[in-house]
């Protein structure tokens, strides 16, 4: 009998994490990615282990989803740095991580199909039987995991943002992302901003490091972070409301330009008019690296979130799971890997008809998945974002005593829950 096939649509952090756990649990795994690179927004992000993400990273490693976190640690340009509102962050090098993630997946035997854009699904009652590629060829599978993110085609970036800003998603070149849950007849959930409008801007952009002054380059290389105060008349608090990343929607981020060294100089603002930016000392020649038109806007996200249960299974479909932003108003790589890993593991449980794994709520990873799912049903909840790194959820982590940087303590907790290395168990 041929091995049952798990098909993952979307090769970002969530999809890669799902591929690893599904493969380790024993399935035949393929990833279909629209662009020519894995990692999606992971190619321009880079912040790991800040605040509660430290706890979540350690939990995942203990659960057996260790590879990607360890790789991010290994490729960190800076470790354990602090910047306003954030402690002990690692900044991985966005210019070198992607080929290494690809290698891990290839080595374990995951089939990777780059530049394979999926445009539709074939459904039989409440079961997906196949996906349809851009060239209309049909790929059959047994269980499917959608990790396509939540940014729709380019029209969304105009309708809810300032138009295409030429971000790393590169839709004009690789074609628009398609919401497969929508194609399968499931109503997507849309995130909102404080004023009720839909979607949210990606929260940061990248400057080309070489375009900055030598002083700034040196400081970035040495400390990982540079903080430049914004002149009083230029401070724009409104900008904080349009951002995806609540953890960075702090007063400090409006009053200061905060640059982080992730290979590029990550600018902690959704966008910044270039002429204003160039008024800062040391930024006279600055230019954007991502999005290329970071002076006018950024990608708009949270436009197609799938309704799901706490095992990451999409409601209303028997064999579709989801992870990453597709699975909720989550922000960040850590959140994508946490949700993706669970979806990957559960894909094999669906194949076997086993009860699906839910992470217990006394782990931050389990709590965020369940909490975000409950909050999204409320109108106010649609305006919030859920991340271990800050905002309301990090406050909750601290209040519920879920935040810890003590690996031993976390280990004994995971052991007590009988979940140590569960993702490494071969089920099939």
């Amino acid at each position, binding site marked *: 009998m041929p091995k049952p096939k798990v098909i993952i649509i979307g090769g970002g952090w969530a999809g890669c994490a799902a591929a690893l756990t599904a493969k380790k649990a024993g399935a035949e795994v393929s990833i279909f990615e629209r662009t020519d690179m894995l990692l999606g927004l992971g190619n321009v992000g880079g912040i790991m282990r800040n605040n509660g993400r430290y706890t979540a990273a350690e939990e995942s490693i203990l659960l057996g989803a260790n590879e990607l976190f360890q790789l991010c640690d290994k490729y960190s340009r800076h470790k354990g740095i602090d910047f306003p509102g954030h402690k002990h962050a690692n900044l991985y090098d966005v210019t070198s991580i992607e080929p290494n993630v690809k290698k891990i997946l290839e080595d374990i035997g995951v089939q990777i199909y780059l530049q394979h854009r999926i*445009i*539709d699904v074939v459904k039989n009652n409440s079961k997906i039987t196949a996906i349809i590629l*851009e060239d*209309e060829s049909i790929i059959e599978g047994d269980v499917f995991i959608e990790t396509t993110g939540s940014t*729709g*085609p*380019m*029209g*969304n*970036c*105009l*309708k809810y943002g300032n*138009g*295409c800003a030429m971000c790393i998603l590169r*839709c*004009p*070149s*690789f*074609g*628009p992302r*398609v919401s497969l849950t*929508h194609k399968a007849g499931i109503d997507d959930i849309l995130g909102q901003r404080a004023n009720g409008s839909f979607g949210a801007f990606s929260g940061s952009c990248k400057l080309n490091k070489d375009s900055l002054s030598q002083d700034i380059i040196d400081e970035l290389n040495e400390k990982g972070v540079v903080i430049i105060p914004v002149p009083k008349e230029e401070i724009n608090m409104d900008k904080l409301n349009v951002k995806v990343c609540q953890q960075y929607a702090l007063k400090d981020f409006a009053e200061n330009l905060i640059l982080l060294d992730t290979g590029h100089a990550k600018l902690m603002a959704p966008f910044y008019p270039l002429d204003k930016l160039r008024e800062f000392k040391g930024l006279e020649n600055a230019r954007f690296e991502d999005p290329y038109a970071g002076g006018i806007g950024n990608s708009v996200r949270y*436009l197609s979130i799938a309704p799901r249960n706490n095992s990451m299974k999409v409601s209303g479909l028997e064999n579709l799971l989801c992870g990453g932003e597709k699975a909720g108003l989550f922000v960040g790589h850590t959140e994508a890997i946490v949700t993706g890993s669970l979806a990957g593991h559960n894909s094999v449980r669906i194949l076997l008809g086993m009860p699906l794994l839910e992470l217990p709520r006394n782990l931050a990873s389990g709590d965020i998945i369940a909490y975000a799912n409950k909050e999204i049903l409320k109108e106010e909840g649609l305006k919030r974002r859920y991340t271990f790194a800050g905002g309301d959820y990090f406050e909750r982590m601290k209040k519920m005593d879920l935040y810890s940087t003590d690996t031993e303590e976390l280990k004994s907790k995971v052991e007590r829950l009988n979940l140590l290395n569960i993702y490494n168990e071969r089920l099939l």
Partner: protein
Amino acid sequence: MKNYRWQCIDAGSDYCPCYLAETMDCITCSHLQGKEFCDCNWRGVCIYQAFAFEGDKKKVPREDMEALIVKKEEHGSNITIFTLKVPHYMARQLSQPGSYIFVRNKKLNQYFDAPISIMSTDIRKDLIKIAIEIHGIKTKSIKDVNDSILIRGPYWNGIFGLEYLKQTKDSNSLIIARGIAQAPAMLLINYLLNNNNQIDVIIDEGSSNYNFMKEFYGNENVNIVKECDLYDLEVIDYIDKKIALKNYSLIFVGASNFLQNKLLNNIESLKNKKIVTLNSNEICCGEGICGACTVHDVNGIPIRTCKTQIRDKSL
């Protein structure tokens, strides 16, 4: 039911967004069809964005222009070939296989616009060649024109399966064409030759009584394998065997809709091949407005074929 998202040949061109965006009937963009959900299949600059950037207005549409007739040749029983002098951009934009223009006698009004395929272009001299089979109301009105003619263009959707054509390099192709369909086949053959393909040709002069392929005599990459009557059942058998025996990457079938369908339905070895067909529908305005060229997909959705690239299996 599978929903097809159609691609407009004009998307991303100098003529996009067009009238259809203004009336919220865009072929490609769901927002410009009045839908809330962003759901296109277009790779290129967002049409909705282009429309908003133009101030919610279409770009300047194609207009009639007068083209000098440089040469007029009469062949067979009813074929007239015109060589026309056109602006440089027009010659360049009409070089893509499937290009067509509207032509009419300048003394007559728009009802007489006849859609005519481009047969060849010379972008150094800014010349285009078109072949007209004189047999209906519109073409008869052109027959006696000698000095200049009104043209409107460029239009591009004269063939379906352009995507396959663009993928075909360094391989073998088979061209099957009847009558006046030999004219668009010539532009296509030249495109294939430029991409290092070997070409076998099966022609049927049909009612034109003219062999357009003479031009390729002596070209070692073009092999005219058969001259025949494509309605002959034995010919269907011949083509079937020919395709089964030789590894063709692309097959062009150019004829009337009736004959194209007959060949596509009866030649077993054509199934699963990359097929390019001629758009033989009754094109009338070229802008997706009048509806004369409409066909319906498997779901009964009307498609304006003057602008929409379609695939046979969706019909």
